[in-house]
C-alpha cells in the first residue's frame, strides 16, 4: 500500500487497523511543523524535543478517540499547545531560560534567513536582521504562555484566526482580543530592551 498518497484521515484508519507505518507517515508529514511550534513555544532545543515527542506520543495513545471532530492537524497542534501550557503551569516556579543571543537555530538547510523585502540584502542587513530576530525571540520568551501560543500560531506558523480558534478551542472574539493584547505586550517588552530600540533607530 502506498501510504504517501493517502489523506491524514485514511492514515489514521490504517493506523487503527494496526499499521504502524501509517503512524510513521503521519510523523514525517507533521514533524517539521510540530517541532517548529514546540521550539518556538519552549525556546530551547531540549524542551522542544521533549514537547514534540510528548505530543506525538499522546497522539499515538489516543488516535482511537479522535474520530474526526477536528481535522487531524488541528487536533495535533492542539495537543502540542495544551501540553505546553500544562507543562508551564506545572513548573511555574522554574521559569524558562531565555534564548541566548548566540544560540544557533537549527534549520532545515543550514541557517538560512529570509531577507526583508524592502531592504537590499547586504551582509550587514542580514546581520542586523539576525540580531532583531534574536531580540524578538527573547521578548517572545518572556511573554505569558497564552500570548506566546497565539502569536506563535499566528505569525510564525501562519495560521488563520479561524484555525487558531479551533486549535485553542476559544471563540473567535477571544482569539482576536488575545492576539491584539499579545501584540501590544510584545511591543511593550521590546521597547523595554535598549538593544532593540537602538537597532531599530539605526535602521
Amino acid at each position: 500500500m502506498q501510504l504517501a498518497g493517502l489523506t491524514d484521515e485514511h492514515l489514521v484508519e490504517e493506523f487503527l487497523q494496526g499499521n504502524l507505518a501509517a503512524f510513521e507517515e503521519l510523523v514525517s508529514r507533521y514533524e517539521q511543523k510540530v517541532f517548529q511550534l514546540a521550539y518556538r513555544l519552549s525556546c530551547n532545543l531540549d524542551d522542544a524535543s521533549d514537547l514534540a515527542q510528548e505530543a506525538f506520543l499522546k497522539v499515538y495513545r489516543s488516535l482511537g478517540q479522535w474520530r474526526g471532530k477536528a481535522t487531524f492537524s488541528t487536533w495535533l497542534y492542539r495537543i502540542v499547545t495544551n501540553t505546553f501550557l500544562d507543562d508551564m503551569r506545572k513548573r511555574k516556579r522554574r521559569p524558562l531560560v531565555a534564548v541566548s543571543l548566540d544560540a544557533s537555530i537549527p534549520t532545515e538547510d543550514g541557517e538560512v534567513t529570509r531577507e526583508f523585502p524592502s531592504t537590499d540584502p547586504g551582509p550587514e542587513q542580514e546581520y542586523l536582521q539576525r540580531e532583531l530576530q534574536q531580540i524578538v525571540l527573547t521578548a517572545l520568551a518572556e511573554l505569558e504562555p497564552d500570548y506566546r501560543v497565539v502569536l506563535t500560531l499566528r505569525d510564525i506558523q501562519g495560521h488563520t484566526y479561524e484555525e487558531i480558534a479551533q486549535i485553542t478551542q476559544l471563540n473567535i472574539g477571544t482569539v482576536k482580543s488575545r492576539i491584539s493584547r499579545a501584540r501590544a505586550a510584545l511591543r511593550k517588552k521590546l521597547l523595554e530592551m535598549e538593544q532593540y530600540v537602538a537597532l531599530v533607530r539605526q535602521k
Partner: protein
Amino acid sequence: MNCREVADLLPLFLDEELAPDEMKEVSNHLSVCSSCRQLLAEFKREQQILRSLPPVAPPPTWRAELLKRVKNQRRPSAIRFFVPRLGSLAAALLVVLLMTNLYVFPSYVLNRHHGAPPEYRIAVSENPEVANDPSEPDGAQTNPETTEKLQFFDLNQKADDLVRLTATSDNSLQRRWWLWSSSLCLVMWLTGAGYYYYQYRRLQEQTD
C-alpha cells in the same frame, strides 16, 4: 475615532481582522495621522520579524527516539487501564462478599445436618455398657438387673435443638454488625473503584 482607540485596533487592523466599518474608520484615521501610521509601521515590523524567522527542523536523531518511545508504549484502552487494577478491585470485592457470608455462613453450616438421620446416637448412662450401645433406644429405661431408672438423652437431638434455637433466634447484634461492616466495605469498594474511574477519565482528557 481618536489615536488611543486606533492604537488598540491596530494589531487586528494589521491582519485585516476588524469589522469592515472599523477597517474603514482606522484607515481614514491613518491617512490623516502620521503618529498612528508610525505605530502601525512598528507593529508591522515586529510581525515581519516573526514571519522572517527561519524554519526549524527537528535534530537528526529525533524521529528515531520518538519511534523508540512509541514502541515501548501502549495505548491506554479501558482494558489496559483496568486489568492491572483488577486484582485490587477483586480483592476488595472479596472482602465485601466475606462480610456477607459472615452473616449467612454460621446458620448455613450449623443447619447443614439438620433433618438428616444421624448415623449414630449417643446414649448417656451411668452404666457404661448401656451407654456405649448404639442400638439402645432413647428415653427412660429401667435397668433389668438393678431396677434402677435411667434417663437416656439423645445428645444429637439436643445439639440440633440448640442449633435451631441459635439460628432462628433474633440475633440483632450480629445482624447489625454485619449490616454496618458490609455496607462500610461496599462504600469503600465503590470509592476505590470510583477513584480508578476518575484517574482513567483524566488520562483520557489529557489528549482531548
